[in-house]
């Protein structure tokens, strides 16, 4: 974790291999009565610290719902969700938010950067909510931007950056808090093949070099091939959960590519 930003209130290190996430019989129902939609039909899933998991499946299979629950953005209708041994399913809205700000980082398909706001300030945003002082924020954000290969781009706004660069800023924003888990929802969905590979290299590097657990939703087998574990969802259930015997080996070092 040598390159990760040093923070005064960083998440406690989670030893690789230690169980981090445990779903037990998780169901999710949207709506009530006749229009009720059973999105998840009893999911059991255990993820250990340091894993790189790709969650796949056709649309409507429940993978996004599962991702929202894993990301503590939503709570299960029934079943248990243990995060570091704590019951997430019974937490209030604010406690979920505190859990997210402390342990989780998010990367979205649409980048979701603040417009007309510099890369630096975008990356600082999570630290604002953690109450970090300005000096600590600047230092941590600069470091995070360097670690995604965007040193020198601090003062550019999203409009001045390419799609791949914008997603790197988003990744820097996700890792600036030294999260235990990075949740990426179709991170390469808006990028061409070349940029997609760069982003995947970056995510793999964060996983292998920094020990960050990466959970990624994707429907592209090429991207899923970077993960070491593949979970397939079909019709609200886990259809298969297999280890990837041959994840894609490092190609171009991340950060040099443009």
């Amino acid at each position: 974790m040598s390159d990760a930003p040093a923070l005064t209130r960083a998440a406690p290190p989670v030893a690789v291999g230690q169980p981090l996430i445990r779903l037990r019989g998780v169901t999710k129902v949207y709506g009530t009565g006749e229009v009720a939609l059973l999105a998840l039909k009893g999911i059991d899933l255990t993820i250990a610290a340091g894993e790189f998991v790709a969650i796949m499946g056709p649309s409507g299979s429940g993978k996004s719902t599962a991702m929202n629950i894993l990301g503590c953005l939503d709570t299960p209708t029934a079943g248990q969700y243990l995060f570091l041994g704590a019951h997430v399913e019974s937490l209030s809205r604010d406690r979920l938010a505190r859990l997210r700000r402390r342990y989780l980082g998010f990367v979205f398909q649409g980048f979701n950067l603040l417009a007309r706001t510099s890369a630096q300030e975008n990356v600082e945003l999570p630290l604002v909510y953690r109450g970090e002082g300005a000096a600590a924020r600047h230092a941590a954000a600069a470091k995070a931007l360097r670690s995604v290969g965007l040193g020198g781009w601090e003062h550019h706004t999203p409009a001045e950056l390419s799609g791949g660069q914008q997603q790197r800023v988003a990744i820097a924003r996700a890792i600036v808090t030294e999260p235990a888990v990075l949740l990426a929802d179709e991170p390469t969905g808006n990028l061409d093949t070349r940029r997609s590979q760069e982003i995947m290299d970056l995510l793999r590097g964060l996983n292998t070099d920094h020990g960050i657990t990466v959970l990624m939703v994707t429907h592209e087998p090429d991207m899923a091939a970077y993960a070491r574990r593949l979970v397939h969802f079909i019709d609200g259930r886990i259809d298969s959960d297999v280890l990837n015997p041959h994840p894609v080996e490092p190609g171009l070092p991340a950060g040099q590519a443009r």
Partner: protein
Amino acid sequence: MLLNSLWLALRSIRRNLLRSFLTILGIVIGVSAVITMVTLGKGATQAVQTQIAGLGSNLLMVRTGQRQGHGGGAGAPAFKEADAAAILAELGGVAAAAPEGRTNVTVVGNGRNWATNVTGSTNAWFTTGNWKLASGRTFEAEDQSVGGAVCIVGETVRREIFGGAVGAGGLGAQLRIKQFSCEVIGVLASKGQAAMGNDQDDVVLVPLHTLQRRVTGTQSVATLLVSMQEGTDSTRLKASLTQLLRERRKLTAGDDDNFNVLDTQQLAETLSGTTQVMTTLLGAVAAVSLLVGGIGIMNIMLVSVTERTREIGLRLAIGALEREVLLQFLIEAVVLAALGGIVGIVIATGASIALASVMGVPYLFDPTINLLSFLFSAGIGVLFGYFPARRAARMDPIEALRHE
């Protein structure tokens, strides 16, 4: 935490400069309208009070006729000089009583002429009217009894006829009033603009007998000026004054008064009361525009919240608490409204100074109304910013992130 929210709010305002300006325009207009109205109203009130104070404090003006105001004297018999003497002699609490007659005449002197007001009275007139001499002397007993050819001029008349230094020039010179000439024995200290804009200094004072015998040719006295001693109950004095005059004018119990008594203090209270009511009324009308400004802020904040749904979703996802998002948007609304308040105060100060000089009323800076308007506009920010802010804070992060 609060500082962070303030920082975020200021950033967001700066990002949308034109829209922010349009948003606060309502508040700006509201605040400046309220402050301008109230400031001018207070200035007008003070102007009225100053003018009435210039008439002489604790003064009762007795005129013939039943009603106060113009034209009421027709038909009613005039007063006599002896009435004034009787008032002073028979009523308690009277400091001075002056009979007064007036006529408009063109006076000639030093090769120039000037249409002015020639007033005939006694030395008591100085007490009742709060007059002082800038130079020279008052009437001597002989001037008053035989109607001597002496006169005392107001500053305006002195300036128009004789010119020269204020309060001095013209002393000892001759002034012709109709067919007779009088010696200028004194100059009145200037009082300036009086009530309803007429110039109190545009006056020539002669002994009452001089006016009666040499100018008007009648024995009548139009007005009695009675000044009360400090601390006298004006209501009681008015009652006994009325009673005395009824007796002297031989009115029986069934007759109405054929004269009226005007209390300057009462007049002052009535007039300033009127301007105060006007001020309150105008201020209230202006306050409505503040309310409209607040609705404008709510409108824009709602648009802003909808527009920034994804941003709110992101903030919530990365761990912003509900109350942090609430505070961010609330502070944004308050900062906008307070900014409008400050701009409004600046505009109101300029407008008040300009309008006060146009209207001829004094400009009085009123810290209370400025502070109150500022706090009120900030309060409007809280009131109308809360609903949009709460809407933002209650958003579901998943839905918000999906928003297009």
